């Protein structure tokens, strides 16, 4: 056997989100060989969750080339801290308090485990295999239920002193504005997250005396509002215009501080197309500091939402020192 080449050319990427846990075997180039998922909420006990996840991962590894082909494991989870390897007080996961998930998985599976939060892992995925490939200074924004971010400085992630950096959704854009779940008022997230967009729509329906397709729909979501835009509904278009105006201010403030080469938008809301991007771009250009205007690219991720975080988790897996219980 040739001793001068690496034998382990694959890793496992795991994405734990509030609803689903997805795990995949990924090679050096980001090719996914096998991918499965299960409902995170089925396992409210963390020990049970770790047991099930470990068993499923081991079964997938055995069915796809075997244990000795796998180098390590990377895990993405909300509120995970890469400096400690813990999930810390996640607001929306079933498991409360501080959970040493990295150590727990390493003990069960016998491979090195890297753990980090979803915003950081998304950024790693974009850098390794996506839109940020080759970039040194960039910001990744995730727009969905919440609004998260991660920025890279000279090719390296900025974690901050305690690993909490990037809480872009909780910067104040409107003094004494909308009430936020975090306890403050006027957080950007209360305007541009899924819930914020729906609230804008509901407020407009009350305040304005105009017809709208949205009025006849019982349940509203950003997707439903987007579909109304596609049918030329003026009020729905105005909902995204207001959303884009707020998002543009937030992004401009962020860019004025960081001076990135690009801002890359990911997540469900990033699929709202021109209805969101045209007003975002306009407001961004209006609010960014003059000497950066025209120099920052606003991009939408070209990775598949279902693959980004397992790819990012696979990229994270390569950053941990190799370790095997059986060798």
């Amino acid at each position, binding site marked *: 056997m040739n001793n001068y080449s690496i034998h382990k050319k694959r890793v496992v990427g795991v994405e734990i989100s509030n609803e689903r846990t997805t795990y995949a075997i990924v090679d050096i180039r980001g090719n996914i060989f096998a991918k499965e998922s299960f409902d995170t909420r089925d396992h409210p006990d963390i020990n049970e969750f770790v047991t099930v996840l470990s068993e499923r991962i081991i079964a997938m590894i055995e069915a796809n080339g075997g244990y000795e082909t796998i180098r390590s494991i990377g895990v993405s989870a909300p509120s995970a801290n890469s400096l400690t390897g813990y999930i810390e007080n996640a607001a929306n996961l079933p498991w409360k308090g501080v959970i040493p998930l990295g150590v727990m998985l390493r003990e069960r599976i016998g491979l090195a485990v890297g753990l980090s939060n979803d915003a950081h892992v998304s950024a790693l995925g974009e850098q390794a295999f996506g839109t940020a490939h080759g970039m040194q200074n960039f910001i990744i924004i995730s727009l969905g239920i919440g609004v998260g971010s991660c920025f890279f400085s000279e090719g390296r992630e900025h974690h901050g002193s305690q690993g909490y950096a990037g809480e872009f959704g909780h910067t104040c854009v409107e003094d004494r504005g909308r009430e936020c779940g975090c306890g403050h008022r006027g957080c950007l997230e209360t305007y541009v997250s899924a819930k914020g967009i729906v609230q804008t729509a509901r407020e407009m329906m009350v305040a304005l005396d105009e017809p709208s397709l949205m009025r006849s729909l019982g349940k509203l979501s950003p997707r439903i509002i987007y579909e109304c835009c596609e049918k030329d509904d003026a009020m729905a278009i105005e909902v995204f215009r207001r959303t884009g105006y707020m998002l543009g201010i937030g992004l*401009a403030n962020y860019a004025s501080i960081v001076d990135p080469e690009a801002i890359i938008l990911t997540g469900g809301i990033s699929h709202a197309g021109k209805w969101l991007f045209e007003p975002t771009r306009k407001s961004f250009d209006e609010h960014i500091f003059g000497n950066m205007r025209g120099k920052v690219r606003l991009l939408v991720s070209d990775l598949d939402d279902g693959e980004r975080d397992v790819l990012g988790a696979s990229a994270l897996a390569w950053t941990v020192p190799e370790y095997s219980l059986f060798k």
Partner: protein
Amino acid sequence: MEEVDQIKTRVVGIDIRENRTTYAIVNIRGEIVAQDYFCTADYAEITDYISALCERVLSLIDENGGYETIRSVGISAPSANYLTGCIENAANLKWKGVVPLAAMLQDQLGMAVAVANDAHITALGEKAYGSAHGMKDFIVVSISHGGLGSCIFTNGLPHLGVNGFAGEVGHTCVEIDGRQCGCGRKGCLETYVSDKGLVCTAEEEIARSNEPTLLSQLDELNIRTITECCEKGDRVAIETFRRVGTMLGVGLANYASVINPEAIILTGDMMQVGKWLLKPMRAAFDGHVFHNIRGKVRILVSILKEGERDVLGASALAWDVKEYSLFK
């Protein structure tokens, strides 16, 4: 001893400002061996300025140990770009366009020269010899020269951004459709938290107030005179700083929520105001920063002297460039 090589233990730090250029010989420990200054505005032509600066620096070196004791030169200048070594379109300096300052000085002085902008230099000074000593992730905010600038350090290194413009916190929007800023936009933090912003707030408060205030008797509204009125218990003066401090606190909270620094270090003339500014700043900061960061970010006022910080920072920068000497 000839068996081992000797290092040069001094550098020159230069702080170029709109009205004054300060230059000093500084040793490894940040002790200023000699310092002098002249008026920047006396030289409308950049080539005259460079000649005068070089002559003065060389004569200071001659009087204080000689040329062979100096390792290199570091310079702080507004709108200077560390990546290119140039001053680029400085709004308030007399020299327009792009000035290749590092190359010009290196040519005439015959030793290595590094250039960086004032916010970056201030942060380097704080890290080497001041309040950020030993820190890896921190922000230094300067409220002076009529503006509000900052520099971020990440993992022990400055984050300069892709074009070298990072840190423009003074031009982040804190009030939609707020005060008109010199940069062309509205509601920038700098329009509230700067010398000008302070005066504007004071004028608004004087106009709005129904009670007599010492502020309306002042010949000139500025940081010092308004602070003096606070010390005398003037309620309008106190309210003025409360509003300025609150805006600063909100701006810093947003900054901290994104960066999660271990400390924010405040520098500049505005810091002499003390509690009148800092108490409302702290209250607004705690009221707006993301909860898992609250209580974890130290807000500090620089321990360095205003007149020395930037020559010390420039000296710290000088150590970053590769040594080079024309004569050896």
